[in-house]
């Protein structure tokens, strides 16, 4: 089949809302867009282990320690599924990790903020995982089959994490005055960065239109951000915590909450590498990888030796 016919089949699959599978022909730009997006998502999962892993050894009860360990472990698992999904597009995990380690691929900027109190574990679960779910649920219907299927499992686990985060904050909010203040402080610090997780406003979003056409993206950044705000305001009321936006108000005509201006200069600065933890996160990640090189080499050498012995025995 010539390329025109292949393209026609591809377009028909997309238009019918069917799935593209690894062996199907796909335009190179579609493949590259998916690799970039899935890799960024995978990198975000494994970098995201750091700010939460930061509190595992200090978790204030054994139950919370178990929950947090399991959560960070889930993130490693999500990284594994996503690197595997990317591999179906013809790129190896090693290549993608190398791009992360050399700054050629990104991870979500939200993880460049520090986790300075225990309450940050609750705020991350409630707000950051909450925003991630808003972004990710539509991806369960993404046009690329392996990504869509990975996202179904990831979203189930993320929604569990979000409820755990909410429950953690609720416990703090109903606790001592110090605990409640800790919870409020965490929400104050994480609210605006969470709104930035949906990406730049629609008027400035560079990749959106083509991704919508390809069925990779289903809703615009601003639509998803609005849904997140609408869902979060009543939850904050249940928590007995305020959101740090004096302009937040319900518009009875539109049925939505209006919110204040987002500081996009902060977003751009951190995206460009100039945030509180950018250098720290990368150094931690590269050190783990470098320190583990001899272990990975040993595993490969041992596997080769065994294969050679089995061959010799056969």
């Amino acid at each position: 089949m010539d390329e025109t016919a292949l393209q026609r089949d591809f377009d028909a699959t997309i238009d019918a809302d069917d799935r593209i599978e690894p062996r199907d022909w796909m335009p190179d730009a579609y493949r590259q867009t998916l690799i970039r997006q899935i890799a960024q998502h995978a990198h975000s999962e494994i970098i995201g282990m750091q700010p939460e892993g930061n509190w595992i050894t200090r978790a204030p009860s054994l139950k919370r320690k178990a929950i947090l360990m399991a959560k960070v472990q889930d993130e490693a698992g999500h990284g594994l599924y996503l690197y595997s999904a990317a591999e179906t597009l013809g790129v190896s995990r090693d290549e993608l990790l190398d791009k992360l380690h050399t700054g050629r691929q990104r991870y979500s900027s939200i993880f460049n903020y520090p986790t300075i109190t225990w309450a940050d574990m609750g705020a991350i679960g409630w707000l950051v995982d909450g925003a991630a779910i808003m972004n990710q649920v539509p991806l369960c219907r993404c046009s690329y089959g392996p990504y869509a299927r990975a996202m179904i499992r990831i979203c189930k686990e993320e929604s569990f994490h979000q409820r755990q985060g909410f429950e953690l904050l609720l416990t703090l909010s109903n606790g001592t005055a110090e605990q409640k203040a800790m919870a409020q402080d965490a929400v104050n610090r994480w609210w605006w960065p969470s709104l930035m997780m949906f990406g730049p406003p629609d008027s400035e979003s560079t990749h959106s239109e083509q991704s919508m056409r390809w069925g990779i993206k289903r809703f615009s950044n601003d639509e998803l951000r609005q849904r997140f705000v609408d869902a979060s305001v009543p939850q904050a009321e249940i928590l007995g915590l305020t959101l740090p936006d004096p302009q937040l108000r319900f518009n009875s005509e539109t049925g939505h909450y209006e919110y204040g201006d987002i500081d996009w200069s902060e977003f751009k600065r951190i995206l460009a590498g100039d945030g509180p933890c950018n250098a720290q996160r990368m150094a931690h990640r590269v050190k783990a990888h470098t320190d583990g090189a001899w272990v990975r080499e040993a595993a490969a050498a041992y596997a080769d030796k065994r294969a050679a012995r089995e061959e010799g025995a056969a």
Partner: protein
Amino acid sequence: MIPLATYALRLGDDALVLTQRLSEWSSRAPELEEDVALTNIGLDLLGQARVLLSYAGELEGEGRTEDDLAYLRDEREFTNVQLVEQPNGDFGVTIARQLLFSVYQLLVYGDLRASSDPTLAAVAGKAVKEVAYHVDHAEQWTRRLGDGTEESHDRMQAGIDAMWPFVAELFESDDLVAELAAAGVAVDPASVQAEWDRRVDAVLADATLTRPTPTWRARGGRSGVHSEHMGFLLAEMQHLHRSHPGATW
């Protein structure tokens, strides 16, 4: 504490302190699969610790919960063996510690399934399945590292050498354990030493590693005498809980 509570606490403290060490690996493992595996092992141990600490508190009858025992005891009241509190070192040290401890724990839990105390028997019945996986994981890595590259062989041998002084303490008995063992409640660790030697020696030989010659030996963990590392481990683990007396988390 009554002897049975003290015994449950010893088993629980071993598991809790090793969990604390393993959880330090989070986001630092040589590959993602190992990050998942080490956390998994830590979570199994934490589950064991929680049941055992809660049981010790119940037996004591003074209303102490798992968290009271984990967060509000001082270093001299912790009864774990010194092996589990040793710092992670490199991956070779961690695997060496896992091998030496997991084989011990497997054999103790294996026999403890026959305990006349139904709670301990039930804990052991569940834990022995988990620990069988921990042993498998440690044995496989010991072989890979020992018989991998020259560098990995040297690092694995160094790990075994560094952890070896903490082995003898695993098998030490005292009056408390001896009496509970005679009553069919506890396992006298000395009774599993021969099988431990056989199993560990086999793995070391397979991995082209040498069994170290004994030098000094650590002792005292069961009576609350620990290495210098323990104070820092507890400081990190307990500080937040202790900073908010009486708070619920």
